Structure formats: C-alpha cells, structure tokens
C-alpha cells in the first residue's frame, strides 16, 4: 500500500470571515476524510503514539475501527481511557503528544490523531446511542470540588460505579476553564453542556454557587456524610508583571477578559456585562490563553492585535494549530519583545477629563535568546537601549497564574508545595489529608485538559479502592 505523505486537511471557516464571528473555526472531518486519514495509519507494532498520550488511549485500535467504518466501535475504544474526547480532540496539544511519536511522522506528516478523535466523538454525539443504564447505587457519598475537566471526569467515573456524587462549583455554571476560559470559536459551549448533562443523567448532583472554603469547608463535607473528597479547583489567581501602568483602565488579565466574553457573553450585542471593544490590543504572553485572548479581541472588532512574547516563535507554548490560525486571522506577533511599562492618558489641565487613566500605549524592550534555562528553553536577554513604544488602547496580561489559597487556608493538614500547589501521591492523587484527593491544575499549576482529565480518572480509581476497601 502506498504511503500518503500528507495528512488530510480539516476544513475551516475562511480566515477573513471567522475573524469577525464567534462560530467554531475548525469544522471537522467528513466521513470520507476520516476514513481516508485513518487509512494512513501504518498500524505499526510498537505503537509509540500510545506512549505519547498522557492517558494512553489505544490509538491504533480506534483508528482501525474508523478505517473499517465502525465509528461507534472507535468511540468505545477511546471511552475506555478518556471521558472527554470531543473536548480533547479539539484542544489537546497533539503535536507534542501522540502525533509527535507517530512512526509515519519520522519521514512524513504524522497521522492526524486529534482530528480523528474529534470526528469519532462528534459522530457519536450526533448519532450514537448513549448507554443510559443507571448503575445500582452503592450507598456511598463522594464530594467533588470544581467542575473543570478533572472534577467532571472524577465525578463521572465514580457515578458509573454507583457512588452518589455531588459536584460543588463556585461559579454559576459548570465546566471550569472549558466554559469561562476557552472561547466558543475553539470549543463550542454546547459540547461542554452535553458532557455536564451526561453526568446529570448518571445521577451526579451539580451544585453551582458553592465556594468550598467559604460557603462550606471540607470538614463540613465530612460532617455531611461524604466519605471522600476530590479537589479539582484549577490554576487560581492571574499574575501581573508588576510594571508601571498595570492599574490603568484598559488593562485586563486574560482571565478577566475571557470570563467577560465567554462566561458573561459580553461578545453578544445584548449582553449586560461590559467589555472593552478596543481598536489596538497588546496581549502579553505566548500560551493558549494568550492566543485565545488575542483572537477574542480581534473578533470584538480590534484592527490591530499584537502578541508580545519575550522568546521566539519556536518557544511559543501554545498549540501549533492555534498559532497558525491566529496568524491567518491577522494577529501580529511581536516576538523577542518584553513590556517595561504601560502608558496612559493624563490631561495636565483637566483632572476631570474622562479620558484620564485610559491606556494609550505600551513600552517594550527587544530581547535576544541567551543560554537555555533549567527546562531547556533559551532564556530571553534584554538588549539595552532597544526600547520602543507601540500605541494600543488595551493590554491583556496572560503570563500565568498562582494557586488560590482559599481551600488550603480552610483545610487543616492539607499540604501544599513551595509554589502553593497541592501535594499529592503521584499514582493515586491522594493528598496529605485523610480521605482527600486532588488533581488537575490545582496540583500541577496551569497545564492541559488531558492531564486534568487523567488526574480525575486516577483519583476516581483510588477513591473507589479506598471506600470499597473500608469494610
């Protein structure tokens, strides 16, 4: 059989059109495309792709089913290892995971595993049959804190084993970053809602508007008869750089900007939540969060959106597809640039001028790449005297997060590391506190959906072992 060197392209909305709407960018494979792409898989013996997957999905097996046209069969294979294939197929950094290991990829383009995963999940969501057989209740109660991918997965796995699971979520909707962070054009909210509905059908009780550490403490949960608690509370508080001008009007954290747009629907014309519709926007940072903020700003009507990143294109931590899509849409990359000050308007003659305090620009310094740091990424070194100004009216900080101390401060005996992340045993997710497990960004710091999902699965297994082994 002849090898097809190039992967089958996935249809996308035209860049010029999608830059002005919030509809999904990538449109997904058709049946023909999926079968053709699946046909490229060599079905090699050592299956390196499986190693590359953080949750070890039996990738060649599901691809074989696709090749055979057995899409439901493919879905069953994926479901054995993953709870959120429609999400992961869209947002996983496949190029640095499964696809980076693909044997075909040594000489040619790797099999488009992510696109196939997405196809299988979407196909199932459209026409698959859900197995709604409710498990027999086993009489045990478990509490899950946070409804991001780690919490949803942990809740789902336990509910399927008959546990009575309650998910406590601080916000007014469930989904975590999947609803308030990642925009509609990359992950339609109806996909997340579908996952949440499926959990409800399994009897999971989702209590929104409950902040653990405030409304209830972990000790309260034990008093209420929960036998185990999983903490999946996410990455936490946004960082700022500490440069002058960060309090000016028009400076956002990416979390705030995206929350206003996604969660509060500020992008819709009739929304009651305000958001700035800036003409020139600077986004600081180079991760997925920065790409999402930049592309959201563009869709809100910006004429120029700059990504300001202190390393080079090679080091950009965002998914490659997002960087490509951003470039196609006209996002301008100011790489090897680091902000030193945000500039604002001040009318010297009129303290009441309504324009006072709004952003007018950002001063940046050029960098070059120096020696690699401990993680092997080359360190940016500022070039003295190279500062210049870029006129902008909005600046979005997307430079990472620090753990939220809320749960730690209200839970005696819960150990955290120097950075504030919850300390857990690697194989179980067990914390230093009896009957409490944790996983996802709350443990690792900002990471990925698949790792959070995997941590939820690991903890669900450990919680089941613990509770079923008690008597």
């Amino acid at each position, binding site marked *: 059989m002849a090898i097809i060197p190039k992967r089958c392209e996935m249809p996308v909305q035209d860049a010029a059109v999608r830059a002005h709407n919030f509809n999904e960018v990538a449109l997904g494979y058709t049946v023909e495309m999926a079968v053709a792409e699946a046909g490229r898989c060599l079905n090699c013996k050592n299956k390196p792709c499986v190693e590359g997957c953080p949750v070890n999905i039996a990738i060649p097996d599901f691809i074989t089913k696709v090749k055979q046209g057995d899409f439901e069969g493919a879905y069953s294979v994926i479901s054995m290892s993953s709870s959120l294939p429609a999400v992961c197929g869209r947002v996983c950094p496949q190029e640095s995971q499964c696809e980076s290991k693909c044997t075909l990829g040594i000489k040619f383009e790797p099999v488009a595993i992510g696109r196939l995963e997405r196809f299988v999940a979407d196909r199932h969501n459209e026409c698959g049959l859900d197995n709604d057989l409710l498990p027999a209740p086993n009489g045990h109660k478990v509490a899950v804190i946070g409804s991001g991918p780690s919490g949803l997965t942990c809740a789902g796995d336990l509910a399927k084993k008959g546990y009575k699971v309650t998910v406590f979520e601080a916000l007014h909707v469930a989904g975590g970053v999947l609803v308030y962070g990642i925009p509609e054009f990359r992950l339609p909210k109806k996909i997340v809602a579908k996952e949440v509905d499926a959990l409800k059908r399994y009897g999971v009780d989702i209590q*929104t*508007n409950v*902040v653990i550490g*405030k*409304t209830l403490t972990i000790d309260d949960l034990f008093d209420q008869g929960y036998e185990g608690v999983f903490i999946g509370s996410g990455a936490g*508080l946004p960082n700022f750089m500490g440069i002058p001008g960060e309090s000016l009007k028009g400076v*956002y*954290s990416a979390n705030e900007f995206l929350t206003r747009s996604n969660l509060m629907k500020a992008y819709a014309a*009739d929304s009651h939540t305000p958001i700035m519709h800036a003409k020139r926007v600077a986004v600081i940072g180079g991760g997925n969060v920065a790409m999402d903020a930049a592309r959201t700003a563009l869709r809100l009507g910006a004429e120029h959106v700059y990504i300001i990143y202190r390393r080079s294109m090679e080091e950009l931590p965002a998914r490659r597809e997002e960087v490509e899509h951003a470039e196609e849409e006209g996002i301008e990359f100011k790489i090897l640039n680091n902000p030193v000050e945000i500039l604002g308007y001040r009318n010297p003659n009129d303290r009441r001028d309504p324009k006072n305090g709004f952003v007018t620009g950002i001063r940046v310094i050029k960098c070059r790449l120096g020696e690699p740091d401990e993680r092997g990424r080359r360190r940016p070194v500022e070039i003295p005297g190279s500062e210049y100004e870029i006129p902008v009216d909005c600046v979005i900080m997307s430079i990472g997060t620090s753990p*939220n101390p809320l749960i730690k401060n209200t839970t005696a005996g819960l150990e955290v590391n120097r950075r504030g992340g919850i300390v857990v045993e690697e194989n179980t997710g067990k914390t230093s506190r009896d009957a409490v497990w944790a996983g996802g960004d709350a443990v690792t710091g900002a990471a990925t959906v698949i790792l959070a999902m995997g941590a939820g699965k690991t903890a669900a297994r450990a919680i089941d072992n613990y509770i079923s082994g008690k008597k």
Partner: protein
Amino acid sequence: MYKIIKKRVLNPTVTMMDIYAPLIANKGRAGQFIILRVDDDGERIPLTIAGCDKSTGTVKIIFQVVGATTMALNAKAEGESICDFVGPLGCPTKTDGIKRVCIVGGGVGCAIALPVAQEFASLGAEVHSVVGFRNKDLVILEEEFNACSDKLIIVTDDGSYGRQGVVTAPLKELLESGEQYDEVIAIGPVIMMKFVVETVKPFGVPVTVSMNPIMIDGTGMCGGCRLTVGGKTKFACVDGPDFNGYEVDFDEAMERSTMYADFERREREEGCNLFKKEMK
C-alpha cells in the same frame, strides 16, 4: 433559584431584601459580601451581607438602585426568586482587641456599615457612629444604628435632617474632644473614605476602609477587582474588601471604577425605557 422572602423599601432609592440562602446564612459574618445574578443573562454584582438569620435561613441585603442590575433586582417582588446568590465572599471585618470604635458611613455605605457596628456592639465594644446622607429623604437605618451605637451622629449635606455638613466634621470634633478610638472604620463612597483617612491621620488612629471595586467572579480568578495597597497589587474579593486606609491608593481606585461609565449609562437608560414601556 433563591427566593425573596421579604422586601422593604427603605427610601426612594434604597431597598432591603431577605433572600433564602441557608448555607450562606450559616456562615456569613460582618464585612463579607455575596455576588448575585438576577436573571439568567444578567450581570454578576456584589452586595454586602447586611445580616444573617440562621433560624430562617435568610441573608439580608440592602442596595441602592444605581444602574441596570440593581434596577432589575428592585423590580422583583416578595415571593419571586433570583437566579444566583453565592457567598459569603471576602474576609470578615477584624474585631480582635478593639474596645472602642468609630464607624463612619456614607449613603448606602451605611447599609454596609450597620452589620459591622452591630458586630462590635455584640462583642461589647463601645461604638460611636457617624452617618451621612445627602438629604432627609435618603436617611436609612436610623433606628438600627441607634440600637447598636453608644453615640450616633447623623449629618445631611443640606441640613434637612441632623447636623448639616459632611461626616468628616463631627468625626474631627470627636477626635479633638479627646475620644480615644482603637480604630476608625469608614464605609461609603471612595472619596469619603479618602477624606476620612486624611481627617484621622493627625490623630494616629488606625483606619480601616471597605473597598468596592468592580467584580466578576469574587473568588480571585479574574483580577478585575485589583487595587494598589501599600504599593502592592491586592484582589479586593479575596484579600479584602477591608484594607488599611493609610495604604490604599484611592485616586487609582476612583479612576478604575469609571472604566465602563459609558456602557453603564446606556444600560441604565435602556433599563428605564423598558420600565416606562412596561408601565404604559
């Protein structure tokens, strides 16, 4: 859904409601707040907990009708429900070691100040309250303040009730007359809090202020509520809302609060128009 158990109009623009939220009623303390959404597509807004009743499971809120969301809330009747109600958020007011306290409240800030005054009174502290309003019609909670204060001074801008003037004048007199306070607590418009700090400064008494920046999540996730306090960035929803008045950058806070002034005005006008249409 969270049911409105009781609704009482305090003055033409200030309304009090008891909301059924037993979990919050169990935990809420003076100085903390809740965040609510009136309807499914509504904005999230913070309001201070003006009291909790564990026996009825209700949380009291007192709000001034200033814009679209507070208008929508005010349009709800007793027995109706609101969509979301989450809390208690923020840190409770610190009361440790305070035996004599002067509470200074301005306008609807008095609603936020009342539970703090009540808390001190219940702990046996001597409470002096200085509360200010624009005019007689806007005076609220006089009876309640009277009940928990050892001394109560009411001022109005136009002198139509109580003393004429702003709150800083009687505050200064109290301090000059030799009253020794362990702490002054100021709650009201940012500009008022700024002047209270300036008034108290020469007397060397600690001042706590309760800040009210624009918020969304109220859990520390967005950073929209940030303030500069002692030169450092603080999130009012998790680190506050109470801060050391000598360290807060008030000018910056005032400026930041006007970020969406245009949008808010449009929303308010639309809200009014809608309301008028419904009345016809």
